[in-house]
């Protein structure tokens, strides 16, 4: 019998099918392109193509004044704008050895955590769509919309806020902020719980995500995965705990981890992180002092002293790093970003090993990449 099978295999002119997925494909999360070699329904090879959204952000930064770069950082990970602004501002502040007022730090943390929830909610929606469920998307977007309405009230923009400044914030919070956020938080908790309930333990969702796209902790570390993708493997590494920045060491929160490093564990970690973020926001609101929100820079045009600095922070997608070199002028000499999505995406090939076509979509969704950050 095996002879017959081998004979058929050797004599048949069956070839692997080359399937081009993207850049115009509904579930490649933007303009990512995968070239898949498939044998029936199984994937035998993958070749990722990136760069369709390349704007040369890092080079652009070299031609802009320090304050203007904040707007460029808004556009890296366009689902977590505040987190990006924060890491850039911290880099310049570290270079200038600038003190940021207490209140500004707290506002930054609150906004970043809200942004983390918004980003993870969007992830829940997209993983639902990737797995074929359309309702979670609508529910998740409703929660995200609430957060964005608050952001608009604060900064005037729903997405590209340009609200953080080197040494503080653009302006103080609106006078009705405490009312708005006390209305928002219970609704937000409901939204998070709802998007948790509809998907996480759904039988079909489990069948689609459990034991799919498994990566071991060693492999994850060697590929440089960070964020929920790394924590899904059981490594409790979070920059907010490992190297606390801003005022994160004043809050009591857990680092959610997974066990198996599969798609479902990554999903689980993100869901739990939303609850933890809510905890952080509540504590920050309690502790927030009154006072100024921006430190005096002395002059409008800042010229940090010559030198270099590397600053990192925990974005919703993982660890973002900014390497900033100044030569003492009003524009940076070099600015390098270590984007979490880009590094997480590098693990695509081992993850897609032996996967089905349908899995490729879910695995890519569970990595939760943002092409604006991958391509820069």
């Amino acid at each position, binding site marked *: 019998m095996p002879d017959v099978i081998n004979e058929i295999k050797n004599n048949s002119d069956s070839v692997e099918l080359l399937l081009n997925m993207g850049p115009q494909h509904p579930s490649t999360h933007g303009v990512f392109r995968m070239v898949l070699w498939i044998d029936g*329904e199984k994937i035998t090879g993958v070749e990722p193509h990136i760069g369709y959204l390349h704007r040369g952000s890092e080079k652009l930064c070299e031609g802009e004044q320090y304050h203007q770069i904040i707007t460029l950082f808004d556009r890296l990970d366009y689902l977590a704008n505040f987190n990006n602004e924060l890491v850039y501002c911290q880099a310049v502040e570290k270079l200038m050895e600038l003190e940021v007022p207490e209140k500004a730090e707290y506002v930054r943390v609150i906004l970043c955590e809200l942004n983390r929830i918004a980003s993870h909610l969007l992830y829940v929606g997209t993983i639902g769509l*990737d797995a074929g*469920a359309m*309702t979670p998307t609508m529910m998740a977007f409703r929660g995200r919309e609430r957060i964005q309405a608050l952001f608009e009230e604060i900064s005037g923009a729903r997405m590209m806020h340009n609200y953080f400044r080197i040494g503080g914030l653009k302006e103080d919070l609106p006078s009705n902020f405490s009312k708005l956020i006390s209305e928002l938080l219970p609704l937000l908790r409901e939204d998070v719980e709802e998007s948790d309930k509809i998907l996480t333990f759904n039988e079909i969702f489990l069948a689609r995500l459990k034991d799919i796209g498994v990566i071991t902790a060693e492999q994850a570390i060697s590929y440089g995965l960070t964020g929920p993708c790394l924590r899904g493997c059981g490594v*409790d590494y979070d920059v907010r*705990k490992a190297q606390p920045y801003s005022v994160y060491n004043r809050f009591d929160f857990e*680092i959610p981890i997974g*066990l198996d490093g599969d798609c*479902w564990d990554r999903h689980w970690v993100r869901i739990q992180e939303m609850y933890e973020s809510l905890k952080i926001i509540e504590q920050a609101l309690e502790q927030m002092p009154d006072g100024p929100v921006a430190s005096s820079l002395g002059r409008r045009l800042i010229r940090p002293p010559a030198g270099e600095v590397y600053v990192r922070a925990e974005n919703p997608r993982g660890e973002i790093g900014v390497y900033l070199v100044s030569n003492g002028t009003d524009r940076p000499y070099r600015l390098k970003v270590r984007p979490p999505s880009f590094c997480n995406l590098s693990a695509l090939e081992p993850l897609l090993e032996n996967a089905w076509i*349908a899995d490729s979509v879910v695995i890519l969704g569970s990595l939760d990449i943002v092409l604006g950050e991958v391509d820069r």
Partner: protein
Amino acid sequence: MEPLLLTYITLSDIQGIAITLSCLFGILSVIVLSLTWLERKALGRLQQRLGPTRTGPMGLLQPIADAIKLVVKEDILPSSSDKAIFWVAPVIVAVSAFMVWVTIPVSETLGVRNLELGLLYITAVAVVGILGLVLAGWGSANKYGIIGGLRSAAQLISYEIPIIMVVVSVGMLSQSLDLRVIVADQNPVIYAAILPLGLVIFFISGLAEVGRTPFDIYHAESEVVGGPFVEYSGAHWSVFFLAEYINTFAIATLVTILFLGGWLGPILPGIVWFLIKVYAVVLVVFWIRGTFPRLRIDQLMSFAWKVMVPLAFYTIVITAVYLFYDLPAWSLTLMSLVGLLVVGYFIYRRMVAPAKRAAEIRSRQAEQSARRRADSGVRI
């Protein structure tokens, strides 16, 4: 007892057949329009949206606007496609969906043609539609289309088997394949009460047969971007769309006739009861669409062959035992409930396993954070 529309056909002239079939086509088109509206509204409400509201009262004219848009749109023929196959495929799909309706009665006296082997005819004709899907995928010369077409062949043929076996057990119960006899036989007790297992198998396999969530694998939007339909546009796409909704309605109708007692019911006339039941089943289909993700192709196939087919065999066996020993009806109910419970237990076990795992993760997490607090230093 003589069907109303049948009178035209007994004239056995072409004119009569043409009139009957165009009547049927008109009625089915109206039903499809109502279904699209209902689906959009139901899904909207499930997702905290309103659904269509602007076109007409409660958006009632939305399906008509959609239909006009589809027909007016440019019909694109891909240059590398196999033109004959590309044009014929939607016709095959639509005709087979349409032909099923020739023998389905909607009340005691209303139906196009009553066949004594009605159920056999329905199961036979419905399968032809698969050919159209495969051809559509092949003819459009698109890789996603080919994958989708082959998926549809695998899926629909696998789920045809449990459907046929359940149909056989229903035929054994009523001792007839005539749909009107089957309904008449359910007069005191509907088959859903006698054979709940059959209802479940038939409904789930029916969902797979019409490619509805969670079995919408061959046209999965996030994987194969519409599968066989990916290259179709305008009027030809709308033919597929029409066929899909006619099929959905047909499956709901068959569930109603075979298990829910068709047009039987007190006070209201038969046709009203029939429509109420069918639309209720259709709403359940939409409800499932608004709730569940999609299965993967291998899970779908193993579900068909490892769960549905054995269960369908079990259905036939218990029906045979019930008939052979002339047992009371409740014994059959009991036997099929046992089958359901066994499967339900296994599904339950698979569902609670990750919850246990989550508890394990939580405890490990607490352990880790306790250790971190004990360290109380910065850890990298």
